[in-house]
């Protein structure tokens, strides 16, 4: 049974960000994430991974990033993501060894788990878990 939740664009110029809660083991962080349909992967900044209790050396899946992220090392990390009051979903992130990168929800695998409808004219973002 699909569940849907609606968010507002904060203003006309705003990029589509939504509030989410990242959960790993017994640690949780509430933050904003960018919905980036052009990103091939979910991207997690280094400092957030550390605050979620992850240890860099223990993550063995190495991920080659591209573009101006090509020089940044990244490793695979599973994190539960809760959107609004929807059930938390376990997502795979490219955990970048850099903290200046944005927290991105991308094609693999946020957009494989959720339908997202951007309605700029109504200033809403609709997210459905299917």
């Amino acid at each position, binding site marked *: 049974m699909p569940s849907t939740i609606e968010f507002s664009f904060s203003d006309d110029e705003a990029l589509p960000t939504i509030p989410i809660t990242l959960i790993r083991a017994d640690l949780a962080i509430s933050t904003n994430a960018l919905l980036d349909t052009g*990103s*091939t*992967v979910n991207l997690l900044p280094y400092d957030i991974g550390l605050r979620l209790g992850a240890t860099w050396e223990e993550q063995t899946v190495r991920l*080659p*990033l*591209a*573009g101006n992220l090509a020089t940044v090392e990244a490793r*695979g990390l599973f994190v539960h993501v809760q959107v609004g009051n929807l059930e938390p979903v376990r997502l795979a992130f490219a955990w970048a060894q850099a903290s200046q990168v944005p927290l*991105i929800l991308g094609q693999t*695998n946020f957009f494989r788990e959720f339908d997202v409808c951007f309605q700029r004219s109504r200033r809403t973002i609709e997210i459905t878990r299917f």
Partner: protein
Amino acid sequence: MSLSELIPLVNNLSQSDKLSLFKLLAAQIPDAELQVIFSASEYPVWSPYDAMEAANILMQMIRDDQETSTHA
């Protein structure tokens, strides 16, 4: 006419007139100064839009994880 008087007039120009004005002004500025102006407008784009290999590896990680969960 001062710059502060000119700016509202420029704002009211059509897009094509603004482009013509821009070309006129650019022709009067030395190349070196133009380069400084445009290099200052470069912004980093952090979106990993073409990291296909990373996406494939992540998908394999997800499949392995699902198989482990199934067999557990």
